[in-house]
């Protein structure tokens, strides 16, 4: 196929001509092979200019383009759309970041900037000649289900937000509790397995004694923290100690807890197994204020290493102190310990006064709790990575703060790490609406720049199967590696590691990358 390249040089308003000699670039481009048209524009991000370029491309019968402008992410969607209208495949538009790689950082040395610009233009032309058109495929989602794991505060918020997009929400809850939330609630159920890919997942659910399969398009993990159980030496030595959440529930509904009440930040103050968690400060203050309001005569001690009441919860700190809550600060000099003789007495050295206090208590509550034990089950079922502390691991922040490394699976609330209810609710809404938005369209887009196997070269060594973070490669019926295109994200880890060089990433093939490097190194430096 003979390539016909259109070269577009963007002036980026006025920046580029101040440093570079555009006429030289233009001449270089028009003298190169396969170039049919060279256009210099003021700003390629301007809609009118863009329309002009595309019209020019159609007139000159160009089938691919090299655009010298700025950062790809800033304008490539608009550019790809415009070229698509002119019948040019989006993968045939090569974008060179002239502004941020050349003009701005090397504006003092015009001669070298010019040399660099010319070299990277040549390299881009060489790459553009080798590009092949690729199509992104579409597939309908079989269902419009969003499955939410966990019916806590976060799960309810997620269900509410997702149902605003008009999708079906199904909440899977481990316990028997009933909640008011849009959609179906499956209680006493747990996810034990999953198949499929983003948009068409097939979950295996253990509902009571029965095993069911459920198709869904997106999954929101809102499993929450391990609010009900405690871990750590202090908690072990006092049998009837409770987590802060339990204290909160008892204050709200049940009979008033037995006083005096002591709230300690962590059940392992001297060790390192359980750090004080972020939510502990605000949640402890909220709970003791609630308690003091209901029964003002109860004696309440808050024993914390440090009270970091941030934001408006600083006001709670002041209010709690005014209401008569006794704050005891300890440090490395004297960690809280249970009295050897009396198990209902705690000994702590007050760091601000220097006195050793012996505090009798009726109820002992701990503000830090371990992670939810169900996280391991969920992570194993959905095949997503865990964090070291036992939470679900978040994906890269560029994917979004409530995403997992796998597309189509979102995670929110205390499944990541324990946090206050308001924060968890906000995260739940975020994850729910993201899942809802994603499922609403009903179409999965995949393909394009994905891995491709040359079957003759493959020796079925399983290296790609083990390495891929998304489990896209598998050994097919012909004993050769194959790629599930729906799962492939196009990272190219398999292509880089394949010992027989049987896998290549389309759009970034070995030839394309090495040709670009060769041309770059052939130019002036």
């Amino acid at each position: 196929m003979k390539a016909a390249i259109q070269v577009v040089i963007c002036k980026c308003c006025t920046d580029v001509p101040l440093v570079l000699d555009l006429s030289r670039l233009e001449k270089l481009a028009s003298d190169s092979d396969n170039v049919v048209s060279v256009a210099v524009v003021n700003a390629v991000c301007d809609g009118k200019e863009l329309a002009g370029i595309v019209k020019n491309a159609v007139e000159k019968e160009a089938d691919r383009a090299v655009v010298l402008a700025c950062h790809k992410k800033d304008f490539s969607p608009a550019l790809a759309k415009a070229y698509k209208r002119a019948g040019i495949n989006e993968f045939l538009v090569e974008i060179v970041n002239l502004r941020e790689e050349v003009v701005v950082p090397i504006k003092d040395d015009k001669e070298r900037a010019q040399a660099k610009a010319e070299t990277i233009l040549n390299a881009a032309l060489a790459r553009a000649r080798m590009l092949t058109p690729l199509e992104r495929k579409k597939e309908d989602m079989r269902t419009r289900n969003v499955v939410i794991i966990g019916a806590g505060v976060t799960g309810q918020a997620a269900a509410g937000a997702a149902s605003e997009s008009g999708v079906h929400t199904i909440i899977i809850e481990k316990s028997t509790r009933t909640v008011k939330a849009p959609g179906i609630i499956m209680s006493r159920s747990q996810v034990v397995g999953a198949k499929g890919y983003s948009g068409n997942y097939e979950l295996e659910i253990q509902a009571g004694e029965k095993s069911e399969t459920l198709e869904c398009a997106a999954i929101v993990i809102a499993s929450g923290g391990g609010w009900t159980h405690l871990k750590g030496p202090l908690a072990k030595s006092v049998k009837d100690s409770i987590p802060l959440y339990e204290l909160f529930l008892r204050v709200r509904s049940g009979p008033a807890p037995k006083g005096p009440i002591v709230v300690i930040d962590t059940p392992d103050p001297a060790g390192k197994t359980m750090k004080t968690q972020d939510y502990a400060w605000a949640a402890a203050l909220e709970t003791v204020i609630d308690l003091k309001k209901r029964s003002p005569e109860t004696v309440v001690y808050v024993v914390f290493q440090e009270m970091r009441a941030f934001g408006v919860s600083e006001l709670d700190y002041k209010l709690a102190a005014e209401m008569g809550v006794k704050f005891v600060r300890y440090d490395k000099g004297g960690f809280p310990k249970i009295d050897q003789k009396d198990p209902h007495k705690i000994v702590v050295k007050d760091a601000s006064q220097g006195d050793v206090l012996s505090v009798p208590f009726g109820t002992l509550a701990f503000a830090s709790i371990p992670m939810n034990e169900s996280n391991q089950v969920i992570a194993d079922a959905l095949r997503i990575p865990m964090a070291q502390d036992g939470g679900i691991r978040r994906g890269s922040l560029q994917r979004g703060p409530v995403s997992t490394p796998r597309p189509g699976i979102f995670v929110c609330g205390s499944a990541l790490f324990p946090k206050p209810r308001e924060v968890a609710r906000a995260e739940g809404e975020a994850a729910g609406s993201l899942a809802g938005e994603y499922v609403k369209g009903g179409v999965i887009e995949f393909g394009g720049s994905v891995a491709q196997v040359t079957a003759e070269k493959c020796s079925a060594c399983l290296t790609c199967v083990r390495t891929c973070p998304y489990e896209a490669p598998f050994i097919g019926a012909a004993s050769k590696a194959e790629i599930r295109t729906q799962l492939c994200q196009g990272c190219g880890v398999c292509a880089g590691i394949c010992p027989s060089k049987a896998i290549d990433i389309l759009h970034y093939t070995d030839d394309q990358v090495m040709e670009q490097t060769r041309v770059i190194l052939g130019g002036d430096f």
Partner: protein
Amino acid sequence: MAEHRPRVVGFCCEKHAMDAVVLSSRSGRKIDASVRLVQVPCAGRVDGMHILRALEDGADAVFVLGCLEKNCYYDTGSIEGRKRVNYVKSMLAEAGVEQERVEMFNVASSNAWMYPEVVSKMVEVAKRLGPIGRGGEER
């Protein structure tokens, strides 16, 4: 022949690393002109062959720029990339080429000061060692 200019090639992942490059430029930092970037989808895409071919074609130093290991867009991509760079280093040691010529760096996309540091480090290496087989030790 005029004074030899260092020739440095960087393989740059198009997610966090490219954002870091753009951010460092937008925050007005000066970057040495001896570096040419080759964009790849992920640091894990870089093959030992790409690095060796770049050295063969005349690069004095090659670096790979990827996401932070715990924040990689493709989960394990930058870890894989580092493994591969270390493998290339061991091959270079066998071939008698200085290992410092090839290096892997991780940058966060919000990190504007890292990329100029990476570049000055690699340019310094390229200047010190000169072209492969000429500068440094006699062969």
